[in-house]
């Protein structure tokens, strides 16, 4: 009975935390991005485990605070645990997350992370608007640390690309 209650609590806490949007890419949630690794109950306290995306991601603190607030609003005492290892990779973005990114106008990462091709910039990126693979990199760095800028040479649409890391 006690175990069941704990399970129900943990599931409810997960739902509350998982719905928190990323502050920089608000079309996806922390669960879509794979940075919310889990929520466990430690007695009455909901403990959310969060892995930062990039070493210097300025959003990390904002994300942790937003998750804590969401848990408190759902009625939990809450604590955030930052988990560094294993390091986050773009492979952890869920299928649903990738779909949402596409719909929002950000091309999701196309290569498995750690691919040598991706690291040395030989990735082929598909245009979001017309589906052409004839695209070119405009800028290695974009509006946030996780994005690069591309342009489609077929339809000329410029768009953001979520870098493979």
């Amino acid at each position, binding site marked *: 009975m006690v175990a069941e209650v704990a399970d129900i609590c943990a599931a409810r806490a997960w739902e509350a935390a998982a719905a928190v949007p990323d502050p920089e890419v608000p079309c996806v949630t922390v669960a879509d991005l794979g940075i919310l690794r889990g929520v466990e109950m430690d007695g009455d306290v909901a403990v959310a485990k969060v892995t*930062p995306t990039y*070493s210097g*991601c300025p959003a990390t603190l904002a994300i942790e605070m937003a998750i804590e607030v969401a848990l408190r609003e759902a009625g939990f005492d809450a604590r955030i645990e930052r988990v560094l*290892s*294993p390091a986050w990779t773009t492979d952890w973005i869920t299928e649903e997350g990738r779909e949402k990114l596409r719909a929002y106008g950000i091309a999701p990462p196309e290569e498995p992370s750690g691919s040598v091709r991706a690291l*040395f910039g030989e990735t082929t990126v598909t245009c979001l608007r017309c589906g052409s693979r004839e695209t070119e990199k405009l800028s*290695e*760095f974009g509006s946030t640390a996780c994005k690069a800028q591309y342009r489609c040479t077929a339809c000329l649409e410029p768009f953001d690309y979520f870098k493979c890391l």
Partner: protein
Amino acid sequence: MALMDAVLELADDHLVLGHRLSEWCGHAPMLEEDLALPNMALDLIGTARTLYDYAAKLEGQGRSEDDIAYLRGEREYRNCLLVERPNEDFAHTVLRQFFFAAFMHPYWHAAQDSDDEVIRGVAGKAVKEMAYHIRHAGEWVIRLGDGTEESAQRMRDAVEALSIYTAELFEEGAAEGAPALPSRAAQREAWDATIAHVFAEAQLEMPEVPFPQTGGRKGLHGEGLGHMLAEMQSVYRAHPGATW
């Protein structure tokens, strides 16, 4: 304490270079670089923060990452000399970045097998970021080295000025007694190969360095570091314990 000292050396390398890069913010020659340089600075400062936080835990004296970064003087900083070299021009800046990233990439790659969980976590992230830095800075080294007469001359000047600081990258420093961290000397071969590959395309040559400059790991720094720290630490020293 060997591990803490070794972690501090690493953290200081990253913070000092990150701060140097951040000095370009708003001054870069083009918009792409105005995004790129602070982005790379963020990677480095992010890594430094995690390492300072870890060093503070290893020390166990109740100091915070901010205390360690902002309340140590120049002689207590343990960064290598390369990272503190002033920005000078864009050629110096991208070459300094390229030399450093070409070293850190194989270093973090090896550190992914560390038996220390924090080091493994930092390494897993940083190894990918350093690959980006090698690529981005390396492309500029090629573009400038194999560019116009002036850009090639500036790149050769940068090579002349910075190559004397590269030998220090491979000094073991405090890590000698810290098996959780990889050997620095062992990264020499990978570094040489990366430099040779890019320099060949950039029409540059690595000069012989009869008298390499070292001393950073012992706290012996160039004049520029003191100035940099004075600016970087002024707010925290004026308002001790401030958070933002």
